[in-house]
């Protein structure tokens, strides 16, 4: 069995507890305008030519080889470290990679996922069997605007409910984008939602433009967004903490 990934990054410190190796799968079903991994939207390997530069996004890797890569830093996974599956939308690969998940679990490797959770419910069922921690994005909860990211709020909420019913460990992550996630309506929805689903922690972060060049190589332009002020960040943290939930600003 082979999968298409764009990168295996060792020594990641931001994608869950401890020291981790993060696997970036190619392919996503959403279209967030602020996405910082544009090379992980399409499912297939992409060749590109940009100015003098020729390159390729993605490569095929067998599950065995991927396991070997993940285990290379095994000695660093003490203190809750392990592997984080990211992307793209990693959950879309989960029925394919189940044998890998089984092996990793057997070896006692802690598994995290970074997901937008807008995926078929069956994949969430698989994930719940193996995943130790879900890092779940909160993007647009206002149904009228879900089309802006190609989202599906109903499906998303159903999946979140599933995780909470299952007592899975969940951390929410909110990208702060004034035009999209921070509109008045959406903020209201987010707070309501957080009140209902009390996660262990909520992380908020500003989007960065490190992916700008990648957009260009793919013949696209990264959109411009309004700035987020420190006041707005503090206000947001205050609102979440008022709900009795730990909130953290992440400088990614």
């Amino acid at each position: 069995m082979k999968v298409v990934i764009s990168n295996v990054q060792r020594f990641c410190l931001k994608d869950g507890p401890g020291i981790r190796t993060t696997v970036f799968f190619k392919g996503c079903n959403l279209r967030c305008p602020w996405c910082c991994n544009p090379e992980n939207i399409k499912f297939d390997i992409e060749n590109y030519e940009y100015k003098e530069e020729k390159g390729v996004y993605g490569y095929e890797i067998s599950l065995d080889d991927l396991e070997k890569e993940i285990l290379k830093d095994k000695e660093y996974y003490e203190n809750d470290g392990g592997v984080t599956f990211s992307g793209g939308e990693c959950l879309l690969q989960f029925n394919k990679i189940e044998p890998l998940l089984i092996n990793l679990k057997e070896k006692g490797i802690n598994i995290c996922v970074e997901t937008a959770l807008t995926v078929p419910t069956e994949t969430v069922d698989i994930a719940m069997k193996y995943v130790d921690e879900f890092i779940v994005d909160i993007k647009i909860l206002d149904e009228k605007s879900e089309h802006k990211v190609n989202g599906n709020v109903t499906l998303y909420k159903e999946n979140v409910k599933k995780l909470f019913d299952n007592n899975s460990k969940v951390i929410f992550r909110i990208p702060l984008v004034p035009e999209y996630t921070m509109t008045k309506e959406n903020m209201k929805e987010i707070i309501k939602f957080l009140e209902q689903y009390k996660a262990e922690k909520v992380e908020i972060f500003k989007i960065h433009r490190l992916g700008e060049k990648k957009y260009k190589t793919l013949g696209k332009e990264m959109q411009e967004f309004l700035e987020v002020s420190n006041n707005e960040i503090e206000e947001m943290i205050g609102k979440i903490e008022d709900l009795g939930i730990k909130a953290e600003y992440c400088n990614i």
Partner: protein
Amino acid sequence: MKDKIKKIIGKKKIFYCKHLRNIKNKVYENDNKILGIIKSSKNAKVYYNKNKGIELKNLLKNVEIQNVSTDNRFYYNIDFFKTICSPHTVFGNLCIDYSIILENSLEDLKSKLDKSSQEFYENELYTIEAMELLIDRIINKIKNEKIIENISNIKNKKASTLYEALQRILFINMLLWQTNHRLNGLGRLDKILIKYYDNDIKNNIITKREARELIKEFLLELHRFYKIKSNVLLGDTGQIIELGGKNIDGRYECNELTYIFIELMEELKLPDPKVLLRVSKEMPRDLMKVSLKCIQTGIGCPLFANDDVIIDRLKDFGYEEDDVYNYGTSACWEPYLIGKSSAQNNIKSLTFMIPFNDMFEKENLSKVSNTEELLKIYKKYLKNYIEKIIDEIKEVDFEKDTLLSLFIDDCVKNSTDIADGGAKYNDLGLTGVGLANVVNSICNIEEVVFKNKEMSLEELNKIRKENFDDNNELLKRLKNTTNRYGKDNEYVVKIANEIIRFASDVMKDRRNKLGGKYKFGLSSPNYIMASKDFLASFDGRKVGEPFAVHISTDTSDAYTELMEFASKLDYKENRFNGNVVDFFVTPNFINDNFEKFVDFLMLSIKVGFFEMQMNVVSSEKLIEARKNPEKFPNLVVRVWGFSAYFKDLPDEYKDYLIERALKNESSN
């Protein structure tokens, strides 16, 4: 050189300035002001006598005694205009056992001398008398009563307080510098000082705060002459203090002083003296935290030496257990048995690239069709090269050294000077450089020539010799191939280990003049000095560009990958002469991830690095400081095995640091 000395030898005082000339050259390059003073001085004097003890007496009779103000707490003065004659190579780059002067008075030392060798006896007796003479001169001149008491006690009492102990270390250390010794290590100060500290605190002799202040002043005294003490570059003084470490029953030992020394280094932010922390997976996590806080300031220390790896290597080599557990290092990182050894651990550089390029100059390689064949021929050249180095070393004559002989076992016991083989151990060390460039060259040839058959070896060699001019595409590829030094990939590790094991075999049975063996390591000060004018190499290095630094990568791979790689290198047999993993971290990275970075360091000890050091600085700051040095007068960076003010470095070192910092950051 020898003729010249003979001519002057008749006179009692000679103006022979080998040592002083060295200082002048160096100071000239870096600081015009001081050069002025030395040049205009007509008082530079070098004393000579056939009897080394009398020679020392003559010197110490004449060195300038500086008056110390009443605020000063120590006497520490070196008269760099006067020294003794050293026509042969002077032992340096080592560390005496300072506990000898704490636990003995000069009287005691005298009583240990026996008369089995009249010459040795006289030399050592005069040497001790010379010290007494200096003590008398000091106490007659200075007014500070506390210092007078501490100094005069050296003659006939053991040290009894921390204050006295520190003064005694400074006293002997100052004599070493005064007598032409360079790169003088300080040893395991937390270990040898703790009983004085504990006793003082218990008996209310001083408070903890006062003790800390004393140690701070002690460090500042050591720092005082740092420009003149420096060896090749400013900052390269070899003043290394070793802290912590496992003891013989396997427990990790550290104490309050371990913490105090590291915290003071953090507070002072000086490049010199410097600290090495012996680490082990048994060490307390909070000691690692304190160390990381110190490293975070960017001063490049402590350097970590991993007891869990190093101790077994030293035992296997044949050193006695007691001595092994008390190891320190020579000036930079070469494990050294404190107070037991004459080892010159950086006697020559082992430049792995020299025989590699030589092979391409002299050999017809058109028939070589795979990597095994290429390696076979390389080994032939490597063998010749190493044998030549060892033959050259055999020529080196060492200067008799009555002072060192008092403080290095077993010279007194054997009544034999250290230069005649009196020390317990007499091994010599080479420092290796450019292994990464050789390994990467071989991997690239394998990929481009043998595997992909893109061109013949001759064609590739021609492009290389033309410095890759007009071949930028290829150059870029050669710099970015997947099999590279620093990746924990079996193939790369296999080639690296094959080469170093072979190097061991070549020198294994050779013995030096004093009967000791040869050893080597994979860290060297020479990555820039040895690569100047050196032709381009297949790893994508252009003519004159530096070789790789120690165990490092030239890509922006994860630190864990580099550690895994380093832990797979084979340091057994005689390959333990300093193996430092060297990398860059941005201050923000540690700030944002402090606890996880502590995890990383603790786990890396378990993974099994040999030694490790890092530069914590952003490329942005270095670039700014390169442009506007006046804005960053106190910016300290780690160079090969020492720390230095960035502004004092030659441009090529500055540029290489910037280049490496940029590479590290390119991954984010």
